[in-house]
């Protein structure tokens, strides 16, 4: 199970990292989504991987799973979901307004005039 979880985090992170470095909005947003999936699994694993152990105190039980990472993951999922929705809306607005979905600064004519030209 450790290998499975670790490689899942690794593959998601590397895929996300690759997509984040692309030039257009859509792949970058996909990359960020992959990164947030990776970080959610990572947070989940930060409380150690246990199977079938209860998270709250009970009589006669010696092994517990850590409940805190589950609360952290829940918060992280909600926040990253909301943030992704926001960036999709802003990106869509920028694309519809300027008919161009590059995320980098375009060299526009005003900024590229040599000094001294009117």
């Amino acid at each position, binding site marked *: 199970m450790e290998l499975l979880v670790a490689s899942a985090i690794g593959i998601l992170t590397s895929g996300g990292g690759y997509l984040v470095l692309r030039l257009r909005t859509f792949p970058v947003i996909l990359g960020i989504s992959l990164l947030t999936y990776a970080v959610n699994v990572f947070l989940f694993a930060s409380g150690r991987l246990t199977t079938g152990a209860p998270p709250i105190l009970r009589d006669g039980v010696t092994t517990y799973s850590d409940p805190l990472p589950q609360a*952290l993951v829940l918060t992280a999922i909600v*926040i*990253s979901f909301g*943030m992704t929705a926001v960036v999709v809306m802003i990106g869509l607005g920028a694309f519809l307004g300027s008919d161009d979905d590059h995320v980098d600064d375009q060299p526009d004519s005003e900024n590229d005039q040599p000094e001294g030209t009117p």
Partner: protein
Amino acid sequence: MNHWIAAPIILPALVAPFIILAARYHIGIQRVFSVVSVLALIAVAAGLAWQSADGTITLYQMGDWAAPFGIVLVGDQLSTMMVLLTAVLALFVLLYAIGSGWDGRGRHFHALFQFQLMGIMGAFLTGDLFNLFVFFEVLLIASYGLMIHAGGNARLRAGVQYVLFNLIGSTLFLFALGSIYAETGTLNMADLANRVALIGPHETVGIRVAAVLLLLVFAIKAAVVPLHFWLPSSYAEAPAPVAALFAIMTKVGAYAIIRVYTMIFPPELAVTAGLHDLWLLPAALVSLAIGMIGVLAARKLDRLVAFSVIGSMGMVMVSISLFTPAGMAAALYYIVHSTLAGAMLFLIADLVRTGRANLDLTPQPPVAGNALTAALFFTGAIAMAGLPPLSGFLGKLLVLDAARDSDLVVWIWVTVLGASLVSIVGFARAGSILFWKAHAVDATDQTNMMPRPAALSYVAVSGLIALLAAHTVFAGQVHGYTTTMAARLFAPAPYIATVLDTPGKLSDLRGDH
């Protein structure tokens, strides 16, 4: 328990939805509520700062659960000073937004403004790292809305960059928190300070990775080179009052670095030796140099101001990364100065824009209210470039003096003084093009029709200048205040004891606390 410490978070959190739900279509009511809320914040923040001036640490346990099991708010001298600075800055920014009419050019300015304040205040007051993440997100999501306030293609495109960069930063923050939790099993800052000190010298891999990841996250917020790329476009394209408020956001990053890297990972800690204590200072020096070269190279006034903010953050970070009490005291003095001066310059850039076709640094006919705007720009430039008589000069002297014992003292002195010279040339060039060469250009009928900026706008900018002047005149007292603050930051035992030893509602049942 003293409930006032929660007021800086609760008050904006209540005012903002009220503005959205009840005063949606009445800009007048929105303005009144927003200003009253900020005035109340200033009063509360001043009370808190006065209370903590003698070293009292105010603890607020959410739901009366004892730390580290419950979430706590902690008001020490540093937190309350930053809260007061935010509230005071917010008042003048708000007055400018109202005077210039920026708040009416889009929807929900005042509600987003209050949510932004809530996030910033929460980030300063929380005593829990995960809660710090949550408040970062609150202030970021409000800032996304404010950043694209009033719309426009250029602003939306800059907004996309800003949001994407910060989303990646947030993801990194979560990775850092996950590593810290996996290594130590806690996220409460005071508890972390105790547990990190217990980590043995042979098990340091995880905690070192976590420390570096966390530093990267805060460096993104503080716009330290090479993580500054989000700042110039977004600050230049944001509406002026929003950019002025954002002047405090880079300081949130600086605050987080000060808090975490004096208490949890102090410079003498063996586990993280050779990381931030070696690499932060060169990065800060490069930020200072790049920022001030950007001032010289900028072709538009708003970009010039944005680069000067990077430069002045570089100065703050140089002083912080000395990790000595003297350096920290100088950094805290300079943080106040840099926030006020940066905000003022963004507002002045907007005063210039009111009368011009654009902010290009090319000769154009004189703007309406030229003489007064020019005088304000002159004052702002003196403050930011660090010339006497304003507080930038004193702050720089303090930084130079604190660097005397550093190994890199030659580098620091050369970079600080060289960057000052470059920024003076940059500001002088911009000022002479904007205001002097303007008289050589024939005014057309169209430019004569340009409106003068409103009186309230000038009042807001003058208020910031008055604060800077006060920061200069009372420099002795302020520096004494920041010196005691720095001494307490490097001796965090009372903070840790207050947070961990205060009993909560079930503490006596458990008995072993």
